[in-house]
């Protein structure tokens, strides 16, 4: 029982990371029906921006929490800017014109970013500073909880609730949902698609940046190749939850995270990727629209 709770907590933490990244996929997908393969690597870039900030002597001189917040802030701004620049320079002209071109360009951008980071920082892992909170534990009865797990789940949970609120209660969110349901109708109602695409890219990048810095603090280590597979699993989460659906991304992220933790906790850890991708293929067989999603079969 105690182990189950601990496994679920770990699953919730990993799932929170997936969910935050999945939100970025799902918002972009909801609007343009395209997969941005470079999204996962934004997490990596953000974690390096955060690392560079935290390595600065003047940041280290600050109170820990303030330093992390500052690093996260710079990472968010930098990643959002990077994402918007890529959108403007490379992606925008492909959207709606060449699906294959968009997929291939984002894929190449992902690997170009990895290679550039590798050139700058080298192939070896980089360590985030050690924080006392990262090793803090809370004991409730027989269950020992790591403080960081609670921080991650709490923070990510707040962001997720915020995103759901954003989607349901704001005009921009309503416009995004409308676009996901019926592109043409939404356009005719005066929805500014270009602006919404930019908003989705920026918000997605910001969430990816939070994930990047948070996972750096949580795991303590970052590397140039940490992003792509994280991105793939997050995309899987978005599909399982129902792509294009913001609540679905959250749900899917948690489902995939818990599944991974369960396999690692009770079966063999090495098999967890096989389970995740096996689950993806199974979902596409049985319920291609995902848990909360709409129809995706092609019929013009």
């Amino acid at each position, binding site marked *: 029982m105690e182990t189950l709770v601990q496994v679920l907590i770990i699953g919730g933490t990993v799932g929170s990371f997936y969910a935050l990244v999945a939100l970025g996929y799902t918002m972009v997908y909801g609007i343009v*029906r*395209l*997969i941005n*393969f470079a999204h996962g690597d934004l997490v990596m870039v953000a974690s390096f921006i955060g690392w560079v900030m935290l390595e600065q002597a003047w940041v280290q001189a600050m109170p820990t929490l303030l330093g992390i917040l500052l690093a996260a802030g710079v990472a968010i701004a930098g990643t959002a800017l990077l994402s918007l620049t890529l959108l403007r320079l*490379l992606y925008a*002209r*492909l959207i709606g*014109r*060449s*699906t*294959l*071109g968009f*997929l*291939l*360009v984002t*894929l*190449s*951008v992902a*690997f*170009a970013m990895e*290679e*550039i980071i590798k*050139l700058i920082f080298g192939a070896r892992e980089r360590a985030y500073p050690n924080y006392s909170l990262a090793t803090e534990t809370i004991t409730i009865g027989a269950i020992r909880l790591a403080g960081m797990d609670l921080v991650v789940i709490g923070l990510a949970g707040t962001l997720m609730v915020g995103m759901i609120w954003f989607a349901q209660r704001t005009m921009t969110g309503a416009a995004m949902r409308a676009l996901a349901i019926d592109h043409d109708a939404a356009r005719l109602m005066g929805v500014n698609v270009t602006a919404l695409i930019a908003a989705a890219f920026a918000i997605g990048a910001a969430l990816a940046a939070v994930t990047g810095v948070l996972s750096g603090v949580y795991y303590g280590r970052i590397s140039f190749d940490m992003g*792509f597979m994280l991105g*793939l699993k997050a*995309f*899987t989460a978005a*599909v399982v939850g129902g792509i294009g659906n913001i609540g679905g991304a959250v749900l899917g992220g948690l489902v995939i995270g818990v599944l991974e933790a369960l396999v690692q906790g009770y079966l*063999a850890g*090495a*098999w967890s*990727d*096989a389970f*995740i*991708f*096996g689950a*993806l*293929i199974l979902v*596409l*067989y049985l319920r*291609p629209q995902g848990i909360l999603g709409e129809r*995706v*079969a*092609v*019929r*013009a």
Partner: protein
Amino acid sequence: MTRTLLNRSRRHVATTWPTSVLAILGLALAGVALLNAYGSDYVTTVAVGVATYAVLGLGLNVVMGYAGLLDMGYAAFFAIGAYTSAICGVHLGLDFFASIPIAIAVTALAGVLIGYPTLRLRPDYLAIVTIGFGELVRTIANNWDYVGASRGLYPLPIPELFGFTFHSPIRQALLAFALLAVAVVLVNRLGRSHIGRAWRAIRDDDFVTESVGLPTLRLKIGAYVAGGAVGALAGSIFAARSVAIDPTNFELMLSVQLIMVVVLGGLGSTVGVLGASLVFVALPEILRSIQDYRLLVFSVAVIILIELRPRGLVPERSVLPPAAALAAARTTPATTTSPPSAAATQATTATPEEPAPLLRATGITKRFAGLVALDDVSLTVEAGRVVGIIGPNGAGKSTLINAITGVHRATSGRVELRGRDITRLAPHRIARLGVSRTFQTTRLIDQMAVLDNVTVAAYATTDLGLRHALFAPRTVRHRDFTAAVRAWHQLDQVGLTEAAARRPGSLSYADRRRVELARAMIMEPSLLILDEPAAGMNPKEKADLTRLLRTVAASGVAVLLIEHDMPLVTAAADEVVVLDQGRILATGAPTEVLALPEVIEAYLGHPTDDEEPDR
């Protein structure tokens, strides 16, 4: 320069099949001979690596270049092929050459299992599922003790053919190049066949292909599986030349690099793939210093290439038959225009007591989430009659057509073709039963010449299969020739032969409609459905269209004509059905129906209060 030369020679070779096979085999052998004379063992090993890469690139090219599907886990096919071949050798004691077909069969099965659920969905799902598939296969290989888990499978037996063992690098090169030659020949044949043309059409518009009778889903799965089979062949080659195989040979990065090779080589181009493989594998061997930057350079190159010509990603290659064929078509006497269609013969043999009409739709209701688009609509069309469907915008005319042609399944009701229930059939099946249509907003495949746009619909009536595409290229070419001649005659019927070699994008609106008409007619329909065919036509063209419709009907074809142009409907139709708000308002002879007050009201609306006093 070299590239154009190669292209030209390739095209030249293509016109004489057996020579092309010999030439390609000869090239492969010459390559091996050169390696034997001048290459060290090291160079030869690199050359075998290039050959393996090239086979992989060719296979992925079938999936990506021909059919336009993004497969991000192509390494999985390579892995399954290599592991199957290795298992056959290590565990089952089977001969290497016997293991090749087994490896291909196992890979093809995996391809169907992955392709079937995924290819029904939007195209980008394939990308993500194939990544998952690639990781799934690698994870299994990495953890399964039967295949040696992360240690890998070894020692692999040395292939042997009639006592000739492939143990030295040069002998392995012989094997690898021979298999590469086989792959080149088969992949090129596929690309040039009717199947290749169908793939190119699907790549551009898989909705149209379905409506002209191409089994789109099956063809997509076919492309995915065919590509996989070639990957399995590469896997076998890899197993044959390796002492051991382990999971690190089949990582995601390999799939990504292969995608880059195929894109940079020019999607759909065999020579391009061969060249890009050479550059990708051999160049870093020569320039050690670029090894570290290889992935970065290739990524940036792909980005630049796509950004510079986003639409021209796939080089446009017309598959127009040789000039001689067109000349022959031109000189064929006009009396042989459009062979009497199946419907026509059917109609002439039809006796008055034949019970079932050609098309009978009964009680068709279609709801879209609360909105009733069609409400209990019934309709009968007899062979040889032109039935006009008129009605204001939003009356449900296009929905009715979609329900008949299987694009949307009716919520309730029944559609029968010659008494056979077709309500639940897939669109391509209905098309093959003799229902062809044109679209309200024309849908032509802009990457193909006008003649090919028409020819592609001849697929519906072909009895050729994969077997012919691979092993009977002469038959395929002969049929292609015949189909092109038929397409030419159909274009002649609509007066568009001079545009045959042009791309549809350069045609006027009215001409595009006429190409659609020719495309519909080449399917030898018994029921022809036209969705606003006269839109954009001038009076002269409308008169021509009316005459054409009467000719078509006179040959025994039933015509369902949706049109807003009332004079045209009056002149062309035997009978008119008026739809309004999803219901049938009136049916009867054109002049009578159009005079009915409720019909006029449906079109022009109620007189408003302001107008009332004037009347």
